[in-house]
C-alpha cells in the first residue's frame, strides 16, 4: 500500500478542484483511503491521516470516524502524534458523546508527563473542552499544577481551573488554598491568568468575594507598578505596559469594590491616576479607559471621580473612531439612570449620533435619546426624533414610534402638541406602529375635549392624502364617526377650518370600505363610523337611505365581523330606531388607569366604559315597560351567555370592537358573541340594560349562580351556595351546607379546604360541629375566596368527623364550580 499523501499535498490538490462536485469526489476518495489506513492500524501514518481529516472537517465534511484515531494518537508517545491527537480531540470530540471520556486517562497521564509541553497540551485540551465528568476526575491534578513553581504550567493550570469551576461549581473550594500566593508572582502570564481565576471565583460566590477583598491593596500596587514602570519591551503595546493585565485587574477591582466602601476608597486614587494618565491616541489606551470608566461607575466612587468618568465618555463620543463612539454610547446607556444630569450635558452629541451611518451606533443613540428626554428638552428632542423616524431603517421604526409615543405621553407640553406629534408619527411611520397605539390615541383624543374639532379636521385631511396606513385610517374613521358634526360645521379654532359637506365625508368613509388597502379591522371602523354619522349629521332622508343602503350591503359580507355589525345596525334602523340616537351618542371620556400595556388598555376601556355608562343616565329614554321586556326576553333567549374566558385579549385593535360589543348584545342572532373581537367582559349586557330599566336586574342576574354539590359520600352531603361580594367582585362568598342522611350524628365535624396558589382562602367559623342525623339540620360555614386572576376555581377539601364512635377522614377534590362563581 503506497504511503498516504501528505497533508500539504492534499490541500493543494483539493484547492485545484473547480467545482463543488469535483471537490467532493476528491474528498471521498481520500476519505476512503484514510478509512482503510485506519482499519490497518497503521501507526506511522496515523498522524498524517488525522491531520488530513481535520482539514476536510474544516471544509465541512463529516469526520466522525476519526474520533477514535485521535484517542490513539493522544495515547502515543510521540509528541507529534500527541499534538495532532489533542487538536483532533478538540475539533472532533463532543462532550455529549461518551467517546470523549476515554480521553480522561490519557490526559491524566499527560498531566504528569515529564515534558512540560505535553503537560501543556493536556491542560489546554481539558481547559478548552473538558466535560463535567472529566473535570471532576482531573480537578485534583489541575490543583496540583496550580501550585507548581513552573510558571509555564501554572498559568495554564489557572485557566484550566477556571474551566473546571465553570463546569462543576462545587469544586471551587478545592482551589482556594492554591490561590494564596498567586498574586505575588512576577510572571505576567501567571498574574493575568490568576486574576482571571480570582474574578471567576468572586463572581460565583459571595463568600469568596468577601474573602478576596483583602487583595485590593495588592492589586492596586500591581496596577500602579504597571503604570509607573518604565518601558518594558516584553509587555509593551503602543507605549502601554501590558494592557491585557491592566484591564483584567480593573475588572477584578470593579467586582471587589462594588457595594463596599472601604475597597472603593482604596482604589479611588489609582482609578483617578489611570483615568488621567492613560494615552488615548491608540485603541489600547481607550480600552483601558473604557474599563476604568466601567469600574468607576460600578463602585462607590466619589462624585468627582464619577464626573471624570462621564467626561471621558463624552470625549469618546467625539472620537473619530466608530468603535470608541459605540462603546461610549453603550456605557452612557448603562449610566443614564444613575447619573442622569451628567449625561444630559452630552445630549447634543448623542443626538448627532442619530445621524451616524452605522446601524449599531444609531440604535444606541436612539435608545439613549429616549432615556434623556425630559420635560425641558421635549420639544427640541422630539424634533430630532421625528426627523430620525422619517429617515431611519424600517427595523428601527417600530421601536422609535413606540418610544416617541411614550415620551410624548409623559412630557407633552400641550394637548395640541401631543396630537400633532402623534399625527406626525402616524403619517410618516403609520404601518410600523404597534397595534395598541390605536386605542391609546383614541383615548387621548377623547380626553382632549377642546381639540376635537381640530383633531378631526386634521385627520380628515390626512385621510384625503393617504389611506394606506391602517392605524392612521382607523383612528381617523373613529374620529370622523364621533365628531363628524364638528367637522362639517367648520368650527375649528386652532387652524383654518375647512369646508366639508356631509356627503363628502360619507364618500370618504365609503371609499375606505371598498378600498383594497383597507384591512378588515379598518373596514369595521369605517362601517361603525358611517353608522354613527346617521345621528351626527342632519336627518335628510336621502342621506339616511344612503347610510341604510351601505349598512345593508355589508349584511351579506363574507367577513363575519362586518356582516355581524351590518346586520345589527340594520336591526337598529328597523326595529330599534327609537334607540338609535341614544346608542350612538358621543362616547364619554375614557379614564386611563394603568400604563400602556395593550391588555390593560383594552380592559380599562371595557370596564370603565361599563361603569361610566352605569352611572351616567342615558337621557330621555324612558322606556315603556313592554319594550324593556322585549329586551329582557332577548337576554332570556340568550340564556346562559356563553362564557368566553379570554383573560388577555390579544387583538387590542378592538377599541372599535368595544363599541361594537356594547351595541352587539342586542343581536337577534342569539348565538355566541362574535369571536373576532373576543374581549367580552361578562358584565356588559346587564350594564347596558341598566340605564334603560331598573338596577336590580344586574344583581339578579349576577346572584343567580346555581348551587352545587361538592361532596356526597357515606351519607354526608356538602353543598356550596354562592354569593358575589359586592364591594369586591374578585371575592366569591361560598356557604357550605353539610347534611347527614345516616341514622347517627356526625360529631366533631371539621371542614378544611385548600385552594391553588393564585387564590386566597378565608374560612370563617362553622355554625356547629355536629351534623345531625337524618337530615334534621345542617352545619353551615362561610368560605371567602379571593380570585384576583379570575382563574378557574378548584378546591381540595378534607373532612374529619366521628361517626358511630369511629373517626372518619376523607379528602376530595372539588372541580365542578359553576363558571359564574369565579368570573
Amino acid at each position: 500500500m503506497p504511503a498516504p499523501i501528505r497533508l500539504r499535498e492534499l490541500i493543494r490538490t483539493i484547492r485545484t478542484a473547480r467545482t463543488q462536485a469535483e471537490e467532493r469526489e476528491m474528498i471521498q476518495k481520500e476519505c476512503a483511503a484514510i478509512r482503510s489506513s485506519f482499519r490497518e492500524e497503521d501507526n506511522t501514518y496515523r498522524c498524517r491521516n488525522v491531520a488530513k481529516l481535520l482539514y476536510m472537517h474544516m471544509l465541512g465534511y463529516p469526520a466522525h470516524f476519526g474520533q477514535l484515531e485521535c484517542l490513539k494518537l493522544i495515547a502515543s508517545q510521540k509528541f507529534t502524534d500527541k499534538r495532532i491527537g489533542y487538536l483532533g480531540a478538540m475539533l472532533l470530540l463532543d462532550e455529549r458523546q461518551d467517546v470523549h471520556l476515554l480521553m480522561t486517562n490519557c490526559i491524566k497521564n499527560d498531566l504528569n508527563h515529564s515534558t512540560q509541553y505535553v503537560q501543556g497540551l493536556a491542560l489546554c485540551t481539558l481547559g478548552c473542552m473538558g466535560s463535567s465528568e472529566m473535570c471532576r476526575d482531573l480537578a485534583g491534578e489541575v490543583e496540583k499544577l496550580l501550585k507548581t513553581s513552573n510558571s509555564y504550567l501554572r498559568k495554564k493550570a489557572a485557566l484550566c481551573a477556571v474551566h473546571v469551576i465553570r463546569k462543576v461549581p462545587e469544586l471551587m473550594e478545592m482551589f482556594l488554598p492554591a490561590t494564596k500566593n498567586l498574586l505575588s508572582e512576577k510572571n505576567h502570564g501567571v498574574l493575568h491568568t490568576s486574576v482571571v481565576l480570582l474574578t471567576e471565583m468572586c463572581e460565583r460566590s459571595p463568600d469568596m468575594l468577601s474573602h478576596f477583598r483583602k487583595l485590593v491593596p495588592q492589586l492596586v500596587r500591581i496596577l500602579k507598578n504597571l503604570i509607573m514602570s518604565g518601558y518594558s519591551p516584553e509587555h509593551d503595546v503602543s507605549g502601554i505596559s501590558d494592557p491585557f493585565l491592566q484591564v483584567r485587574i480593573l475588572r477584578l477591582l470593579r467586582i471587589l469594590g462594588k457595594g463596599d466602601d472601604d475597597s472603593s476608597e482604596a482604589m479611588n486614587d489609582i482609578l483617578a491616576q489611570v483615568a488621567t494618565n492613560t494615552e488615548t491616541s491608540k485603541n489600547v489606551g481607550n480600552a483601558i479607559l473604557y474599563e476604568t470608566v466601567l469600574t468607576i461607575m460600578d463602585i462607590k466612587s466619589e462624585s468627582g471621580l464619577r464626573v471624570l468618568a462621564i467626561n471621558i465618555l463624552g470625549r469618546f463620543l467625539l472620537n473619530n473612531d466608530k468603535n470608541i463612539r459605540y462603546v461610549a454610547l453603550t456605557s452612557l446607556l448603562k449610566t443614564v439612570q444613575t447619573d442622569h444630569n451628567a449625561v444630559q450635558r452630552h445630549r447634543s452629541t448623542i443626538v448627532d449620533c442619530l445621524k451616524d451611518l452605522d446601524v449599531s451606533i444609531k440604535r444606541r443613540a436612539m435608545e439613549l435619546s429616549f432615556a434623556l428626554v425630559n420635560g425641558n428638552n421635549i420639544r427640541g428632542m422630539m424634533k430630532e426624533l421625528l426627523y430620525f423616524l422619517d429617515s431611519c431603517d424600517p427595523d428601527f421604526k417600530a421601536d422609535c414610534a413606540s418610544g416617541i409615543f411614550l415620551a410624548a405621553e409623559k412630557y407633552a407640553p400641550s394637548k395640541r402638541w401631543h396630537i400633532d406629534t402623534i399625527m406626525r408619527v402616524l403619517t410618516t411611520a403609520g404601518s410600523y406602529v404597534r397595534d395598541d397605539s390605536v386605542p391609546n390615541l383614541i383615548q387621548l383624543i377623547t380626553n382632549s375635549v377642546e381639540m376635537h374639532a381640530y383633531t378631526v379636521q386634521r385627520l380628515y385631511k390626512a385621510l384625503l392624502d393617504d389611506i394606506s396606513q391602517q392605524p392612521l385610517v382607523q383612528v381617523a374613521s373613529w374620529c370622523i364617526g364621533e365628531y363628524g358634526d364638528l367637522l362639517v360645521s367648520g368650527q375649528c379654532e386652532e387652524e383654518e377650518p375647512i369646508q366639508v359637506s356631509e356627503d363628502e365625508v360619507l364618500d370618504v368613509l365609503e371609499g375606505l370600505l371598498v378600498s383594497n388597502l383597507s384591512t378588515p379591522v379598518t373596514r369595521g371602523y369605517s362601517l361603525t363610523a358611517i353608522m354613527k354619522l346617521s345621528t351626527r349629521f342632519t336627518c335628510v332622508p336621502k342621506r339616511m337611505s344612503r347610510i341604510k343602503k351601505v349598512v345593508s350591503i355589508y349584511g351579506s359580507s363574507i367577513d363575519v365581523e362586518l356582516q355581524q355589525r351590518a346586520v345589527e345596525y340594520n336591526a337598529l334602523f328597523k326595529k330599534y330606531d327609537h334607540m338609535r340616537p341614544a346608542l350612538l351618542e358621543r362616547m364619554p371620556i375614557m379614564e386611563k388607569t394603568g400604563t400602556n400595556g395593550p391588555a390593560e388598555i383594552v380592559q380599562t376601556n371595557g370596564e370603565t366604559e361599563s361603569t361610566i355608562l352605569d352611572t351616567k343616565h342615558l337621557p330621555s329614554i324612558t322606556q315603556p315597560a313592554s319594550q324593556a321586556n322585549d329586551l329582557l326576553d332577548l337576554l332570556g333567549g340568550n340564556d346562559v351567555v356563553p362564557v368566553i374566558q379570554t383573560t388577555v385579549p390579544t387583538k387590542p385593535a378592538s377599541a372599535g370592537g368595544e363599541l361594537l360589543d356594547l351595541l352587539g348584545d342586542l343581536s337577534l342572532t342569539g348565538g355566541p358573541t362574535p369571536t373576532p373581537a373576543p374581549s367580552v367582559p361578562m358584565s356588559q349586557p346587564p350594564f347596558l340594560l341598566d340605564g334603560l330599566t331598573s338596577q336590580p336586574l344586574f344583581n339578579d342576574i349576577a346572584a343567580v349562580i346555581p348551587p352545587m354539590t361538592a361532596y356526597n359520600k357515606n351519607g354526608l352531603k356538602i353543598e356550596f351556595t354562592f354569593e358575589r361580594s359586592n364591594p369586591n367582585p374578585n371575592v366569591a362568598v361560598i356557604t357550605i351546607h353539610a347534611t347527614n342522611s345516616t341514622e347517627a350524628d356526625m360529631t366533631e365535624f371539621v371542614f378544611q379546604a385548600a385552594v391553588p396558589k393564585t387564590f386566597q382562602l378565608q374560612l370563617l367559623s362553622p355554625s356547629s360541629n355536629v351534623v345531625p342525623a337524618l337530615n334534621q339540620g345542617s352545619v353551615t360555614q362561610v368560605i371567602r375566596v379571593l380570585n384576583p386572576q379570575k382563574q378557574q376555581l378548584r378546591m381540595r377539601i378534607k373532612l374529619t368527623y366521628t361517626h358511630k364512635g369511629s373517626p372518619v377522614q376523607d379528602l376530595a377534590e372539588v372541580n365542578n364550580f359553576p363558571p359564574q362563581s369565579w368570573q
Partner: protein
Amino acid sequence: MQFMLLFSRQGKLRLQKWYVPLSDKEKKKITRELVQTVLARKPKMCSFLEWRDLKIVYKRYASLYFCCATEDQDNELITLEIIHRYVELLDKYFGSVCELDIIFNFEKAYFILDEFLLGGEAQETSKKNVLKAIEQADLLQEVSTLSVTSELHSNNLATIQNTLANA
C-alpha cells in the same frame, strides 16, 4: 470568549475555535449565519455588532476576517487587541503572514492560538514568551519524528493497548 472564527471574503472557513460545547450541527448553523452577517457589513461600520445574545467583535486583515464572540461583560476594545495580538503572533511565526499560510498550515495556526488563549482567555501576555514556547514545541516535534525506531514503534502499541484497556 465563546468562539473565534477566521473566514475569507468568500465565506470560506479557515479556522474555528469553540470554547463552548455545541453540536456539529449547531456550530455549522452559527458559522453560516454569522459569516453572512459579518460579510454583509460595509467597510466603514464599527467592529462590534449584537448578534443573538452575544457581542461580536470582528476585524478584517487583508482577505481574512477574524471574528470573536464575547459575552456581555467582556471589554470589546481589548478583544480587538487580542485579535491584533494573534495576528502579530502569526505574522512573526510565518514571516509576513498571508491567508495561504493559514490555509496550508492550519494546524500550526491552531497550535499558536492554543499557546496564546486557553478556555477563551489570554494565558500569556508577552509575545516573546508565546513564540518561544511554540519554537520549543516545534523542536520537540522534530526530534520525536526523527527518532522513529522500531523500539518506539512497539512501545506505542503497548501503550495504546494499555490505555484502551484501562479506559
